[in-house]
């Protein structure tokens, strides 16, 4: 009787272990997916091809820029989020073109495509030895602001390549603690005074 009970228990334990192994096996897209490098704002996050340092995040209700001497504005039903990142390439020229804002519940907001004609929207290409600042602009829902993560990579959905995931924890705040949202963000390049 005891032996039968022991055998039964062993069988149940083996079944439980196998079930746990089956449920926890990563799927194909996880196995061949991005190699995540995490970090926070203000520190240089080192991936295979580039280092990224998120300097600041700004929020605005509308963007304005000049085009053919006409002022164009872009409004949104949510908020504009402008993230300034310092990029430096490590071993070869790299175009860190894929950026997305992932909210606290996992909503992924890709870069906006409504600003193709705005000035200063060059592709964020970094050369080795020449660090540069790049600006990524997103259109997000106002409740996706806190606890968000910025994902940066060279290609969309990188396969077995690094992806920088940077926690956006230093948001601009007013003295009373509320989020500082600008009314208008001017995208025109700062004109240098002729000397």
């Amino acid at each position: 009787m005891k032996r039968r009970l022991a055998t039964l228990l062993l069988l149940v334990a083996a079944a439980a272990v196998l079930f746990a192994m089956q449920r926890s096996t990563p799927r194909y897209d996880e196995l061949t997916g991005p190699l995540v490098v995490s970090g926070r704002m203000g520190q240089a996050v080192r991936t295979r091809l580039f280092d990224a340092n998120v300097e600041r995040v700004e929020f605005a209700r509308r963007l304005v820029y000049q085009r053919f001497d006409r002022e164009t504005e872009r409004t949104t039903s949510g908020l504009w989020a402008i993230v300034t990142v310092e990029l430096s390439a490590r071993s070869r020229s790299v175009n860190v073109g894929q950026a997305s804002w992932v909210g606290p519940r996992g909503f992924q907001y890709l870069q906006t495509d409504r600003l193709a004609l705005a000035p200063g929207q060059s592709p964020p290409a970094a050369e080795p030895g020449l660090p540069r600042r790049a600006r990524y602009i997103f259109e997000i829902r106002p409740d996706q602001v806190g606890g968000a993560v910025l994902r940066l990579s060279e290609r969309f959905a990188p396969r077995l390549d690094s992806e920088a995931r940077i926690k956006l924890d230093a948001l601009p705040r007013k003295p009373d603690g509320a989020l500082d949202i600008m009314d208008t963000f001017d995208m025109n390049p700062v004109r240098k005074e002729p000397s």
Partner: protein
Amino acid sequence: MTGRGDDRSAGEKRWRRRCMVLLVMLLPLVLAFNTRENIERWWKSRDLLAREVAAGEQADFGGARWQLHALRMAPLPAGGNIPDNAMGVVADFRVQVQDADLPGNWRGCTIALQDGQGRRWLPTYVLRLPRSDTQECVSAIFSGAKAGAMLRIRQAFLVPRDAAGALRVTVSLLQQRPHYLRFAQHPRLMQ
């Protein structure tokens, strides 16, 4: 009975040993056979072996004869998309086409600058060069040039000022990998 049993177990032991030895020999062979395609693909996907080209010389590569006509560098004013301490480098090639199958031979044409530590600079599109009869390598593929035609290929790069003097140009074609061309000429400063 015992005698025959001993013989049988000795025979078994001998065969078991032979099988173990054969296994040790067979396993690496099977592994090599199964992965030979992967190994070949890995070998052909990287720029590993440089073919050095001295200054002023020509090299046959990818069905054409390549000559580095000029490699010039010029400091740039900062501002706009150009960072401080950047130097612009322009590489001019004169290429004589020998095999007119350019789309086949020149697929994945990459012209880059390389320094002594292995950093690579790919062409940039930030510099506004004056219009001329030169073209980029990728657009030259579709130019429909015939055998014997002379193509002028130009690419511009953005490099840091302190590294600009020690750079060398490399030309890499997908079909010719792991070989690639490396020209020994360093950039000359243009005033």
